């Protein structure tokens, strides 16, 4: 049963077709790769799913619920996690705070309860902290909770962002170039984490990447975009050997 389904997505920006009739689906336990030359519309597609861009036409459903009429925070509360190309973290707060922010949607206390320091606040904070510690272990960084987030190296920030989506309770993960800017060791670490997430189940992943090795290693299916249109679709091997795909990439240079 498809988890996330996008059909006929078209986005026009004042005469420019950022996306034209793009269809895509991702099921639980599946990693779908989204590749294409720069400017192909990959980020636009992710932005539509996250609710940051309104499509001109098309349908997007998560387990049947229409996504394109919802606000970004409503969409994320449905379980759509987004990892941006450049990590957006609160540099002045601790790593733990940066994770706890993802638990906000589960918190059941209001501002008044916070001001008065009521016990339910403390209890829920403790529960959230516990969940965050679990995630830190899962992403392989168990001891960094108390560290000032601004001092985290780039690679750890990217892992943190993935962890944040997990804590959010994401069932769909939208990853925008998760290994861009990472060194070999960091790439391997991220790849291992993503592979574990895939086998661990429970997540459908859309992976936008330029690193073809990663794409081959992780993706069950790959969709290729060029100038807003899908030009190829299939397994990594099929797609990476497709002459049309090669042409699209070479053509941009």
């Amino acid at each position, binding site marked *: 049963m498809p988890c996330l389904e996008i059909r006929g997505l078209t986005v026009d920006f004042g005469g420019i077709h950022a996306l034209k009739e793009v269809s895509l689906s991702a099921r639980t336990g599946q990693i779908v790769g989204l590749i294409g030359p720069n400017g192909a519309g990959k980020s636009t597609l992710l932005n539509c799913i*996250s*609710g*940051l861009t309104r499509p001109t036409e098309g349908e997007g459903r998560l387990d049947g619920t229409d996504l394109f009429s919802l*606000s*970004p*925070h409503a*969409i*994320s*509360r449905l379980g*759509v*996690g*987004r990892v*941006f190309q450049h990590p*957006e*973290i*609160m*540099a*002045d*707060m601790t790593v733990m*705070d940066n994770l*706890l*922010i*993802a638990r*906000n*949607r589960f*918190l059941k*206390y209001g*501002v008044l309860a*916070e*001001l*008065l*320091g009521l016990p339910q*606040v403390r209890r829920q*904070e403790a529960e959230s902290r516990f969940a965050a510690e679990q995630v830190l272990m899962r992403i392989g960084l168990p001891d960094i909770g108390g560290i000032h987030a601004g001092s985290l190296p780039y690679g750890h920030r990217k892992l943190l962002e993935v962890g*944040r989506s997990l804590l*959010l309770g994401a069932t769909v993960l939208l990853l925008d170039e998760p290994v861009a800017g990472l060194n070999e060791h960091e790439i391997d670490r991220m790849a291992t984490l993503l592979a574990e997430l895939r086998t661990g189940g429970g997540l459908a992943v859309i992976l936008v990447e330029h690193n073809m090795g990663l794409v081959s290693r992780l993706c069950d299916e790959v969709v290729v975009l060029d100038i807003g249109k899908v030009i190829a679709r299939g397994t990594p091997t099929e797609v990476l050997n497709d002459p049309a795909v090669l042409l699209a990439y070479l053509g941009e240079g």
Partner: protein
Amino acid sequence: MADAKKHTGRAVVVLVGLVVLTAPFWMSGYPVYVLSLVGIFGLVAIGLNFLTGYAGQISLGHAGFFAIGAYTTALLTKKAGLPFVLSLPLAGVFATAVGAVAALPALRLKNLYLAIATLGFGVVVQKLLFEWQSLTGGGAGLEVPAPRLGPIVLSTAGHMYYLILAVVILGTWAALNIARTGSGRAMVMVRESEVAAGCLGISVAKYKVIAFSLSGFYTAIAGGLYCYLVRYINPESFNIHMSITFLSMIVIGGLGTIPGSLLGAVFYVLAPELFRGIKDAPGLVFGLSLVVVMVLMPKGLWGFVGRLWRRA
């Protein structure tokens, strides 16, 4: 070595605490009054810091909330005879509602656009207070009776000092609670990246409204205490200059931090007192001190204290 540091820190806190708790007993009227002002401005600073420091929404109109608090409290006391335990919180609640409403047009505004819109808020409030003469006395001002609770009347400087101290302690504790929990984190995330906040399940609009409301609440309570302290208020004083002063206070003290709010208030009230003695040039030295602090202490006074502490 770490132990010595911890003990020194503790000693400083205890010393300051002792001075603050016993001040009226050994200080004369004027210094007590000055310290009372520090407390009041400290509350304003905490309030403004929620909005501008945490949530990143600049406000050049907080004199408006201060005035709303002052006048609401004054009128509730004068015309409805309410005790201060009712008039102050009610003024706070009213300002909270005003803040929530004022937030709505501000949701899509940023930076200078937001600054001018909030400036407009302050101007409108001040104008309303001037013009609604039947209610506020207009430009003639309003005399404020002493705060009372049943038979107890807080008529001396010492009484007011302890009321203000109690409210500051309570307010600081509550503010620290907010900073450490969901709302505090959400406001900071909104400042950091509205886009990322939205994708983390946080309603940006909701938290901007919360920031405005919370900020209005604290500032209005401070305004209420102010009217009880000075016993005479006039719309003239709640002007643009005051709003700009509030903003500078939190930047100098340390934007987005609660200790910084209090330090900023200390600086803003005490520095002019210190410089008063300097012949011909109190304003000059004060202005220079602003520039100097900004050059030497990028994270404000509290950041500087933190830096010294880490280096010790």
